[in-house]
């Protein structure tokens, strides 16, 4: 009996130490520790694509196994996971969201000032490094059909002024009541109104525009349907909407452990345009291709940006691209 007892005890302790030391179980990876790279992916399609993109780049250039912690509902949940140390990289962060959400500051409409502010505040308050943007921004944007844009020569929101009185506008529900960049702010900034403004669910606005039920809608600038319906995004020439430039974020701890990460993120600077992001989102949302597959295909098409500065040697194919 005593032997059983001791046997049980030994097994129990082996087990608990195994789990408590958070040692990686083969096949499923472990929690983030000092040795592992964990990337937070959001619940949004774009957030997942970008997390898998970072994973693909890390595994291509470094001989380590990176891990995507997927489906973290919102940007603030990913922030919490970063602060707790459950993950040490976030695939995509947006200046506007982080400024008002994670950092609790007032919105800043000047893109450069907003960027400088988040870089500084994340370094000071959270010991995290905010990298230069991927090149796309997922912001609110007014968009019209190509026909209407060509007919009236529309490029910016201000161009709408002469015809706005005849336009039916479809906008996001929550935008109507938003402070700072909502409907009221729009009236103050641009000083004109539409014939009628209909609040609706954000996912429906693109189809409403396509179907001709609306003449102009407010949507997200990287949505895949912009590309597929051939919509024209109007430039926000009076900077009503705060910038939502997309960047990767990494903790100083992981950058210290893997100095190569820094050059990987710099390599990814300005590599993806709004139009490209629209296409990637479209592939995942409408063409039934998983974000991970979309990300891998994109990286392969672009040869993992091997020809872009800063040059790095690939970990996978020895003696590969070294002509840099």
């Amino acid at each position: 009996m005593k032997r059983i007892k001791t046997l049980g005890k030994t097994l129990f302790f082996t087990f608990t130490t195994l789990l408590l030391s958070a040692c990686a179980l083969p096949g499923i990876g472990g929690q983030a520790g000092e040795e592992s790279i964990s990337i937070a992916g959001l619940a949004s399609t774009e957030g997942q694509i970008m997390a898998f993109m970072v994973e693909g780049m890390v595994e291509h250039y470094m001989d380590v196994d990176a891990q995507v912690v997927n489906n973290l509902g919102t940007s603030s949940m990913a922030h919490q996971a970063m602060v707790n140390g459950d993950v040490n990289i976030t695939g995509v962060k947006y200046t506007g969201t982080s400024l008002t959400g994670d950092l609790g500051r007032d919105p800043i409409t000047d893109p450069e000032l907003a960027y400088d502010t988040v870089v500084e505040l994340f370094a000071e308050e959270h010991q995290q490094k905010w990298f230069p943007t991927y090149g796309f921004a997922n912001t609110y944007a007014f968009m019209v059909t190509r026909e209407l844009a060509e007919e009236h020569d529309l490029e910016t929101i201000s161009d709408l002024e002469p015809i706005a009185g005849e336009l039916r506008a479809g906008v996001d529900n929550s935008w109507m009541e938003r402070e700072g960049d909502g409907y009221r702010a729009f009236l103050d900034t641009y000083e004109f109104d539409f014939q009628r403004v209909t609040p609706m669910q954000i996912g429906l606005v693109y189809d409403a525009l396509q179907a001709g039920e609306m003449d102009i809608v407010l949507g997200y600038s990287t949505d895949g349907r912009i590309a597929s319906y051939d919509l024209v995004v109007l430039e926000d020439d009076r900077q009503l909407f705060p910038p939502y430039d997309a960047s990767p974020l990494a903790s100083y701890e992981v950058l210290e452990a893997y100095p190569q990460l820094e050059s990987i993120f710099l390599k990814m600077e300005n590599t993806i345009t709004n139009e490209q992001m629209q296409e990637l989102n479209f592939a995942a949302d409408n063409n039934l291709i998983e974000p991970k597959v979309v990300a891998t295909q994109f990286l392969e098409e672009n040869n993992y940006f091997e020809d872009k500065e800063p040059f790095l040697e690939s970990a996978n194919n020895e003696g590969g691209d070294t002509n840099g």
Partner: protein
Amino acid sequence: MVDVTEMSMIQQLIYYMGQNGAYVWSQFLRHFLISIYGVVFASIVGIPIGFWLARHAKMADWAIGAANVIQTIPSLAMLSILMLGLGVGADTVVMTVFLYSLLPILKNTYAGVRNVDHSLLDAGKGMGMTRWQLTYKVELPLALSVIMAGIRNALVVAIGITAIGTFIGAGGLGDIITRGVNATDGGSIILAGTIPTAFMAIISDLFLGWLEKKVDPSNRTKK
């Protein structure tokens, strides 16, 4: 480019599998491993405790009661509570599966060992077997099929719990299901996540059921 909106749901499902087969397979393996790890750890802990409890019947009510209480906590709540302490990721889900698997394994081990015929134990004792030999050569083989039934039960439940693990970033087939729910026209994606999950549960159940029969000593003596 194929226009997927024109396809029926079944065609979409086939197209989806063609495009993302490798991804679905990797999530399938991950899902399976998370469930298995939890159940294996629970067996390592639960079976010895079950044996011990069989000899300390007074403690048994108390211990099985405690395991019962764990079982009554909804799995989403349990995941969230553990997430506070252990953080997000697969390890937390393994821990949750472990806790839920304890009860069926503990209970079945206890019942299996208690039901071993006393005369057989006495016979063993009469043959000069030590306590350890009795446990290992008489009780364990006789209780094994009941213990297996507990493990089988635990594994099927575990596969279901792991699907919820997606909410704390553990990955697995739950990732595919949530994506399908969020997508505008995601019926086929939901199927692509649920069919393999159900398939996994059914196959493991059948396999363990077969194993259970195989180790049942009453089957062996018939031959």
